[in-house]
Every structure is written in structure tokens, then in C-alpha cells.
């Protein structure tokens, strides 16, 4: 589904070069639910941005769903984002001036879907996240957990194969965080591949696989840890 080999990403300013990712290797399989952890500044968001085609990289190879994306232009990248990737953000990123219906509509319009198909998809998604009755509310009229559920509805409305979430529960209390996590799990069960960055180890443990990023690389410690979780999960 996602395959990164030897990816490097450097941020250059006049004074300094920051290697946000260095020789980064990762493979994510179709249908997996991966939790990414790591200290602040280690490169988690950079990884997600590159994975979701929000940012380009300096070295290495990246193929998404079998397609090599290093040579794509801005137009093609936007289209791939729209068709294959769904995003969930820590601060929800709902558009404050649009009601829930129109918020979920945003990616669908960029796909030039017909009005009828859009309406059906939007109402179906709002139904799924339990907010169908509030489709004409503004984001500011909702709690954080509800807002994140709308954001999830928006991310999934276009039926992406791949869902990227950057600390989706970072701004939620633990009850709401668990509800969002439940939702993500059920989405994953229906076949969507999920990569989620989180600080919450309890939530991370619920994922299929844990990856730790340290200094812009997948840390070996993480693989050891992961191997252990897998053993525990297998009941050994």
C-alpha cells in the first residue's frame, strides 16, 4: 500500500539545515492500522505529510498504492490526495464558516462528483459518525469530539483507501478519544488502511502495529517493542 525507501527530508533555512527524516524506510500493508509514536520533533508529522503528498522529499523512493509519486506535479499530487488519501488533524481543521454538510462536501466537490451522489455520500457519512441530525450546525456549535467525528466523516466521504491521522485525539479528553478510536477501528475493519500518529500509548496499543520514530528514523527499539507486542498478542 505504502512503501518508503531511504527517504530524506531536509528543511533549510539561511542558518541551519534540519534533517526531519533521514534514510527513512517503512512499508505499510493494505488494511493495516499503524500507530506512530515518538518524541516531539522526531519527524512524525513530516512522515505523515510526505505519505499524504502534502510535502515533497529530497531523497529516496516512495510509492503509494503501487504508484511511484516522486515525479508527480502539483496537479497530479492534489488529485491523488483527493482520491486516495483522507486526512484527520489534531485541531480538526473544519472550515468554520461552513456547516457540517458543507464541510463534508469539500473533498467531494474537488472530485467533481454530481450533486446527488455527493448528498448521498455526505448524509451516509454523517449518519455513520452519528451527527446526521446536526448537518446544518456550524463546527463552533459542536464539542471537540463531535468536531473530530465530522472531520473523520469528511476524510472518508470520498472513500479513500488510506487514512492519515496526526494526533487525532490530542485535543480530546479520554472519553472522547476512546470514542474516536472506536470509530477509527471500525473504519479499519471495513478495509481502510490507517496510519495514526499519537502520544497516547494506550491507544497505540490498540493498533495492529506500532512504529516509533526517533530523530527522523524508524527506531530499532520500536521494532523490538513491536515484536514483543505481537508475541503478547499471539498469547505466547
Amino acid at each position, binding site marked *: 500500500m505504502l512503501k518508503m525507501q531511504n527517504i530524506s527530508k531536509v528543511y533549510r533555512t539561511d542558518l541551519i539545515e534540519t534533517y526531519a527524516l533521514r534514510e527513512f524506510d517503512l512499508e505499510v500493508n493494505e488494511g493495516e492500522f499503524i500507530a506512530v509514536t515518538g518524541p516531539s520533533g522526531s519527524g512524525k*508529522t513530516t512522515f*505523515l*505529510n510526505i505519505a*499524504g503528498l*502534502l*510535502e515533497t522529499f529530497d531523497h529516496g523512493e516512495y510509492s503509494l498504492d503501487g504508484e511511484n509519486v516522486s515525479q508527480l506535479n*502539483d*496537479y497530479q499530487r*492534489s*488529485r491523488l*490526495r*483527493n*482520491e486516495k488519501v483522507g*486526512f484527520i*488533524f*489534531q*485541531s480538526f*481543521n473544519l*472550515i*468554520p*464558516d*461552513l*456547516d457540517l454538510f*458543507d464541510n463534508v*462536501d*469539500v*473533498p467531494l*466537490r*474537488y*472530485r467533481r462528483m454530481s450533486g446527488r451522489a455527493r448528498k448521498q455520500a455526505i448524509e451516509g457519512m454523517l449518519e455513520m459518525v452519528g451527527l446526521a441530525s446536526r448537518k446544518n450546525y*456550524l463546527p463552533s456549535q459542536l464539542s471537540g469530539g463531535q468536531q473530530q467525528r465530522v472531520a473523520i466523516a*469528511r476524510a472518508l466521504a*470520498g472513500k479513500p483507501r488510506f487514512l492519515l491521522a*496526526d494526533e487525532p485525539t490530542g485535543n480530546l479528553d479520554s472519553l472522547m478519544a476512546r470514542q474516536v478510536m472506536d470509530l477509527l477501528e471500525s473504519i479499519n475493519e471495513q478495509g481502510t488502511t490507517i496510519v495514526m500518529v499519537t502520544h497516547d500509548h494506550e491507544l497505540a496499543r490498540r493498533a495492529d502495529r506500532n512504529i516509533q520514530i526517533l530523530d527522523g528514523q524508524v527506531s530499532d527499539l520500536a521494532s523490538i517493542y513491536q515484536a514483543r507486542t505481537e508475541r503478547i498478542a499471539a498469547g505466547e
Partner: protein
Amino acid sequence: MEFRPILSALMRNKAGALLIALQIAITLAVVTNALYILKQRQTHINRPTGIEATADAFVIYTRVFRNDINIEQLVDDDLLKIRALADLQAVTPIQSVPVSGGGWGEDFYLSQDQSSDQSVGFGNFMVNQDGVEALGLDLIEGRNFSTEEITFRSPVETVYPRIVLISKPLANALFPDGDALGQLVYDELNSPHPTRIIGIYENMPNAWPNATMFENSALMPQISASNDVRYWIRAKPGRRDQLMTEVEQLLGLDRNRIILGNRTFEEVKARTYRNDIAMVKLLSGVVALLTMVTAMGIIGLAWFSVTQRRKQIGTRRALGAHKMDILRYFMIENWLITSAGLAIGIVLTLALNYFLDTNFQTGRLVWYYIPVGMLFLWLLGQLAVLAPARKAANTDPALATRSV
């Protein structure tokens, strides 16, 4: 295609948009009305004069201050000397100047009959046989004066000469059937002195641009024997300014008179129309300024809203918006604001026009000024919003995850 959500987002952020819409409404009202008035003034200023020599002619005003001078002799001498100048095309004495604002008004009566007082007013211009050429008039019927027909007219004389050339508009006013040539007209009721129309020229306005009879003029084969001696002089093409200096020096040698002034015909017109010209400049300035201020307002608002919505734009990019989609968003938003402004603007325009017409008799606005003005403001809006919209389109999609 994405009108509705843009409109609903706009309706939730009305304040700034409303201000700009109002500004656009006012701009439409002021610009269309100003341009309309401006156009009227310009038409007024640029009415055809029929004077072909406009760019080559000037008038020199002199006054003889000794009473024992023989004016007839002096004029003959002047004409001889001026005719000897190489830059000269033609010269004629003249007692009043077309479009100058001041001249001789007279009336022609149509019959001797005491019971009929039908008369038509006109501006009287006394010239010699070279007047037609010096002014550059288009003689369309009849003939010009001959040298022998030119007489001197003393300042106290009121009787018209026996022959006259008149403008086509005056001919039509006197004889609507179009048979003016050869007809007789009279200087007063019961006059024993008929004057025959021997020629008709296409057009030459009289001295009063605001008179309804502006195009009624007549040339009389006379030279005024007064102490005010004036010449209308036409230079060879392009030689006007040189000839002006030459003539001034030439006449200045005469110790018995002073030169009161020396003015090109273009200056004469500019002085007469100075209020209209000032109005045209003022209105042009108002139009330019208002257009600029409105464009700046649009740019300012768009820039502000782009800056304010950076995260939202990044999010839209993350959700799959192409750069074009973002550009289009701001163009459509601007189009909606402008359209709302223009809708209010039409009402304002008509109201302002009604006010100006009832209070200052400016006339009713010609309808097409409104659609043309609207088109102009639509275009202005789209142009003004282009730079901010392009900045928005270039927003980094990573802002979706990076900004707080």
C-alpha cells in the same frame, strides 16, 4: 459550480464584504454619472466649428490711441505688410471672434412688412474678401465677396451692407424651404435697405457657445473703422507660432497704437470653455481616484481574508483542491461581492442621476452607461483580486498540519 458554499461562507463573514459591496455600489453610481456628464461636456467643447483653420489661426488685438489717425489707411498698410510675410496663408480684419464669448449680435427680418415681426438672431462677423479663406470656411452655395465689395463701416453706422454670406444653419432658420440663396433680408422692420444673401457656408459658430443659436452666423463685407483694430490671421500649416511673433513685432513698430493681445484660436476656445474643461478634469480625477480606491479596497479585503484563511486553504489543499480551485474560490467570492455591490449600485446610480437631473439639469443618464460601468467594475474586481487569489493558490498544503 461551487457558488452556494462560497456564498454561505460569505454570508457568515458579512462585515468586510458588505463594506466593499457598498463601495462598489457608490463607485458605480459616481463613475457612471460622472462619465456621463463628462461625455456631455466633451461633446459640448468639441462641437464641430466648421473653422478649418482652427490649429493655424490666431487673432491679434490692437488699439490706436491717437484720434487723428486714418484707420482706413492704417488697415490697408497693415494688410500689405502682413501679406508680405512668407508664413501667411490669409489675413482678414475682424471685429469679433467666433467662440470667444463676446461679439456682435444682430437680427435679420424676413420682410419689410410692418405687420410681420419675424426675425432670426445671429452673430455678425465683419471680414474682407479673404475672410472665407482665413477662417477656412466651406462655401457650399453662391459666391464669396470681391475686393471691390469691401467697405469701411463707421462705428455709428447701423445699416447692413447690401450683400451677406450666412451659415447653413442660419439659412435654414430664415428659409426652412432651403431656398435662402439670393433672398433678401432686412436690418429692421420697415427698413428701406434690403440685404441679399449671396453665399452660404456650411458652418461657423458665433461667439456664444451657450446660446441656442450658436450656429447662426453671418459674414459682412465690411471693415470696422474703429480704434480697435483686430486681425484674424491664418498661417501656413505648422507656421502659426512663428507668424504670430512676426506679426506682433511688425505691428509693434507702430508708435500710434498698442498691442492688446495675441491669441491663438485654440487659446480663445480654451478660455471660453475653461469651466467645462475644468469640470472634465475634475470628473476624470474623481473617476480615476474612486476607481483606484475601490481597487485598493478589494485588494485589501482579499489580502486580509487570504491571510486569515491560510490554514483553511491548506486544509482544502490537503483535501485535494488544485491550485486552480483555490484561485477560482477567491475569484468567485469577489464576483459575488461585486455583483451584490452592483445590484445596489444600479439603484444608487439612478437615484443620483435623478437628483443631479432635477437639481442641475444634467439630463437623464443614457441607459448603456450602466451595463458598461458594471462590466468595468466586474473586470476591475477580478483584476484586483488576482494577486491575493494567486497568493492563496500558492499556500503550502503542509499548513494543514503545521499551523495551529
